[in-house]
């Protein structure tokens, strides 16, 4: 009982409102530190294969000998098709598949994004598992052009050779589909969409032959020309669209087969040299997070993952002594493992961060980091809600030091009300009985409007044709930078928002941000974390209106200083927020990675129209409205 009454007495204590900013800062700090300790041995784990049926590397591989001669011939055939038309290429590849007694079909696709016309043709062949009943299938992909737009000579030739070789085996319990897609992103997307019949017939052709439920997909990216190239390592690419990941078992099987059985080193996230130090692990993890956060397609496998088909790309990198046959044997062994599967891959993790080919952290370990960052917004939002309900500050009756404020002294005699309950009479300050009503209309309307406003850039960027994208970006950057100041000016001119209303605007904006980010953290951890970090200053900025009572001000700054430098402080915060404008952040990021902004926007638009990318929605309807609301609130301090 004593505890409850102490807490109840504390409830009215104005000191309690000073706590949330510190609490939020602590959340952010712990969230970031949490992420930084993940690469340590104590917080990450060695990978392991959970699914017993996979038995990686337990089979002898026989893809050698005369198959190598045939591979070289097919590589010449592929090289001869480089300058031919799409139609001719498809026809010839289909003929080679047909000569291996496989069923062949083709698929045309044509997409329009940012005024570009993405059209090409897929050709695929189905190897009927000799004893299979068309219920399950695994896919081997060789995109005609890889992500770097090089012709995938050896990759396609290897797919052709393996198709011929696999046909002779009688042990396949699943159908095997060999897919040579026209390109690395839209082609596989068109194919997998048509396979699951979720497509618009205007842009892609339906598949004339199909097999059963897809159980896994492996893509080969080996662009060595007709005279070959010996590689050093296999780069395993695993990011799917929207940051979805394949089952960790598939990745582990590939790594275990390549490094354990074939002796080929494996690398990930373009970390060509990895000495297993803390820095390297952290860098790998951060690269993985950025790739996941962007949610773009990272290879031909990416399109499969949204359909719950686990997929990876094996990419050859460097100069070494491994040849195409060792890659072929790796794929053979991987397919033998997948062929063993009795169930869909489900045993291992779908949410993980990899920091080396054999080290990972699972969602249980890393999730608190993004959650803490999301929680910091919620804490501040609750604090702002409570603060908005406090009318005038009252002296704490329990506090020993009397308030120096003159008006509280003069109003003291008539500020007491007698309350009577069961015969006892108590004197209570009238101010603490007064009810402060919150005016919700303006804040809610503002928050709603700012979220709808986000639809504009979303629409413009996804539907502007390529030549105008740069212009559109610069215009929108300029508009969004000046918009908060203008809005604040207009608001103060026409609607004169009270201090309570500006507080509520910030409160709702942060509440929504916290909610969205914590929900997003369970789907795409990295995106939630990155947006949370860039939005974290929004927790600490406040509207510095002149009537601000001293108790609710920013705790770090003494009141006299704030009231004196109100305008200049507001201006500083506005400038800080301008730097954190999502568009400015995107521009800075493109400068840092040496990409052009048009390239990024074209990719994003293609993602929006073809791959079903959702990152833009998060940027324009979660991050941007929160930033806009925060900036308007701060800019209000300039005009009040």
């Amino acid at each position, binding site marked *: 009982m004593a505890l409850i009454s102490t807490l109840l007495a504390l409830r009215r204590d104005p000191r309690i409102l000073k706590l949330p900013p510190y609490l939020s800062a602590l959340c952010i700090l712990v969230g970031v530190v949490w992420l930084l300790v993940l690469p340590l041995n104590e917080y990450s784990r060695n990978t392991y294969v959970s699914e017993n049926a996979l038995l990686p590397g337990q089979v002898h591989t026989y893809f050698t000998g005369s198959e190598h001669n045939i591979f070289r011939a097919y590589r010449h055939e592929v090289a001869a098709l480089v300058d031919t038309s799409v139609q001719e290429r498809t026809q010839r590849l289909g003929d080679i598949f047909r000569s291996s007694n496989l069923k062949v079909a083709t698929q045309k696709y044509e997409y329009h994004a940012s005024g570009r016309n993405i059209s090409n043709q897929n050709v695929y062949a189905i190897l009927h598992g*000799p004893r299979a009943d068309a219920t399950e299938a695994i896919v081997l992909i060789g995109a005609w052009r890889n992500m770097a737009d090089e012709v995938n000579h050896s990759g396609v030739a290897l797919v052709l050779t393996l198709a011929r070789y696999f046909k002779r085996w009688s042990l396949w319990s699943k159908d095997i589909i060999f897919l040579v897609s026209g390109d690395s992103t839209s082609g596989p997307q068109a194919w997998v969409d048509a396979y699951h019949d979720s497509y618009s017939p205007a842009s892609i052709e339906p598949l004339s032959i199909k097999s059963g439920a897809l159980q896994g997909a492996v893509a080969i990216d080996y662009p060595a020309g007709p005279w070959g190239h010996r590689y050093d390592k296999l780069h395993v690419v695993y990011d799917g669209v929207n940051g979805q990941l394949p089952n960790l078992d598939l990745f582990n099987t590939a790594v275990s087969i390549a490094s354990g059985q074939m002796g080929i080193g494996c690398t990930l996230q373009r970390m060509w040299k990895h000495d297993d130090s803390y820095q390297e692990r952290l860098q790998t993890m951060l690269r993985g997070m950025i790739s996941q956060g962007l949610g773009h397609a990272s290879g031909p496998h990416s399109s499969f993952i949204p359909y719950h088909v686990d997929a990876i790309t094996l990419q050859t990198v460097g100069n070494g002594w491994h040849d195409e046959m060792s890659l072929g044997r790796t794929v053979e062994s991987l397919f033998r493992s997948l062929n063993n599967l009795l169930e*869909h891959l489900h045993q291992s993790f779908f949410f993980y961060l990899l920091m080396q080919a054999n080290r990972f952290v699972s969602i249980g370990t890393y999730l608190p980091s993004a959650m803490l960052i999301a929680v910091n917004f919620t804490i501040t939002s609750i604090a702002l809600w409570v603060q908005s309900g406090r009318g005038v500050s009252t002296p704490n009756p329990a506090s020993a030091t009397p308030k120096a404020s003159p008006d509280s002294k003069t109003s003291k005699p008539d500020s007491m009300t007698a309350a009577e309950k069961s015969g006892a009479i108590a004197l209570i300050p009238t101010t603490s009985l007064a009810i402060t009503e919150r005016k919700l209309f303006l804040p809610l309307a503002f928050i709603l409007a700012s979220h709808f406003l986000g639809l504009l850039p979303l629409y413009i960027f996804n539907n502007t044709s390529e030549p105008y994208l740069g212009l559109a970006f610069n215009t929108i950057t300029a508009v969004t930078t000046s918009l908060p100041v203008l809005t604040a000016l207009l608001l103060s001119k026409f609607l004169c928002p009270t201090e309570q209303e500006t507080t509520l605007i910030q409160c709702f904006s942060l509440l929504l941000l916290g909610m969205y980010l914590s929900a997003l953290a369970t789907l795409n951890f990295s995106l939630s974390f990155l947006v949370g970090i860039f939005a974290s200053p929004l927790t600490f900025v406040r509207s510095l209106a002149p009537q601000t009572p001293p108790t609710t001000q920013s705790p770090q700054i003494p009141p006299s200083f704030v009231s004196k430098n109100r305008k200049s402080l507001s201006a500083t915060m506005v400038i800080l927020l301008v730097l954190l404008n999502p568009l400015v952040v995107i521009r800075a990021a493109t400068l840092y990675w040496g990409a052009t902004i048009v390239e990024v926007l074209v990719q994003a638009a293609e993602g929006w129209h073809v791959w079903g990318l959702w990152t833009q929605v998060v940027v324009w309807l979660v991050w941007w409205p929160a930033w806009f609301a925060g900036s308007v609130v701060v800019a209000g301090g300039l005009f009040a």
Partner: protein
Amino acid sequence: MRSFLPLLFFNYLIAFASAASDYYERLLLRPLPRSALLASFNFRSNESSASFDQQHFRYFPRSLGQILQHAGTKELHLRFSLGRWDAESWGQQPWDGAREGGTGVELWAWLEALSEEEAFARWLTLTNALSGLFCASLNFIDATKTIRPVMSFQPEGDHHNSSSLHLLHGTLPHEVVCTENLTPFLKLLPCKGKAGISSLLDGHKLFDASWQTMAIDVRPICGQDGTHCVLEMEQTVDMVLDIDRSKRPRDNPIPRPLPIEEIACDTSKHYNAEDTCYPLDKSAEPPWNLTDIFGRSLKGACPLTDEDGEGAKTVCINTPPERIIQANTTGQYVETRLASDTVRCYKLPTGADFDIDLPEQQMTTGLVLASPPLFAARSINGHGQERGSIQAVIRNPSFTDSVEFVYLESLPWFMKPYLHTLQARVDTSPSNPIKETYYRPAVDRHRGTHLELCMAIPPASTLTLTYDFEKAILRYTEYPPDANRGFDVAPAVIRLLSPGSSGKQGVYVRTTSLLLPLPTPDFSMPYNVIILTSTVMALGFGNIFNLLVRRFVGADEVQTMGAGGLQGVLRGRITRLRAKFTTG
């Protein structure tokens, strides 16, 4: 270039070998494109109704006969199938698909019973007995997997009192057919795999086939005037073997890459070199013989077959006349040529091994494969845990005839179709191809969905049938051990109404089975819950147990409390001992 000879339907071979003798067997071999070989085994044993009723069995197996009598079964059709028939390469199914089954096990029977309940009880008796006889999980055909088709099946036999007959149909698409089903199948034969064509049936080769189906059909056949009824049991094994794969010896079945000298390279390619070889297609017919293909030798004729006449022609091979065939045996055999020499039949020697040898040969003529009446493919579309849709694409290859057929779907109860989304479109005409619909909705955990559609496709058209369905969430005990594999959905059965077959057998086409992924819980969760509740229980139990059995005394009541350390402990022990002795 090859010229093509018209192919003789081999059903013709069967037609005239009717109830002439009581036991009849025939193996028909037909090379198919892409080095495949269709082997079609047919065994037929008759028993007159009178002796069957008196349980006097001669050729009819007693084990099966007694089951049929006990369960009141008048006509029985049982299928064990594996793989799929590749209609585009291999053409029309053997027996017009009438002896074919869907993947797994399919069973339908006409039972004599007074009421539906009685019929179902007898059906359960039948499935349980057959389950034991054929070592298959037929006992899992329960109410949820049983339907009563209306249009898709017609009795093949002659039945007198057809009003009291009930047709029940059940499928087990998940059942894996293997050697344990073949052994009881062979035991039903009079020669039991020891002689005759059944001596070729070896589990290793049969189940390595690209497609195989084992069928048992029991039906009563009566004379013109309704008397002289016999009970006929027909056992059929059809399989398509890959000649290259089947010829690999059993002790070295690995298809290692051939030495480069044995591969025919295309030397016209500009890059052709020592280490580069573009493989040439083999256009010649591959060499094979019975012993290599089946892994066993044919042990002469079964002595129960006819000595002469049609019934004696036990092994037939359907090839162009120019194909060289060498019969190897030490005994006496007779070769007959039928159907303008495209079919060669052999009367087997008794007691001596028989083999036919076909050398590698460059052919100039080929056989035209009969085109199947319909091509059917079915797939599950959509993704996610909640909904999906089924799409069946049925194509009529004929340029002249329209085809009318019945489409039968038997869906498990946890797959709930929305009938209002059922759409059938024909690409060449805007009219609705559905003539008639029979639909019996599912009842959760009691029966599955039964959907029969009577449809027509105009010539050279494709019919696309789609409907959406919802996936139910099962109770966690209802999941099988391999829940994440998905659930098998039985193949759709298509029966052609016109053009149908002249006989009573009908023309059938079946689609492949489907794999339906259902929302699956994380099964480690119940385990975690058990662990957590056990911990809580243990904690609670421990505390209460402590309270109950421990004696709590005040600190001042203990005399030795003052002295700590070893002395205190010792003194405490002594006090306790003394207390024990004094009280007890």
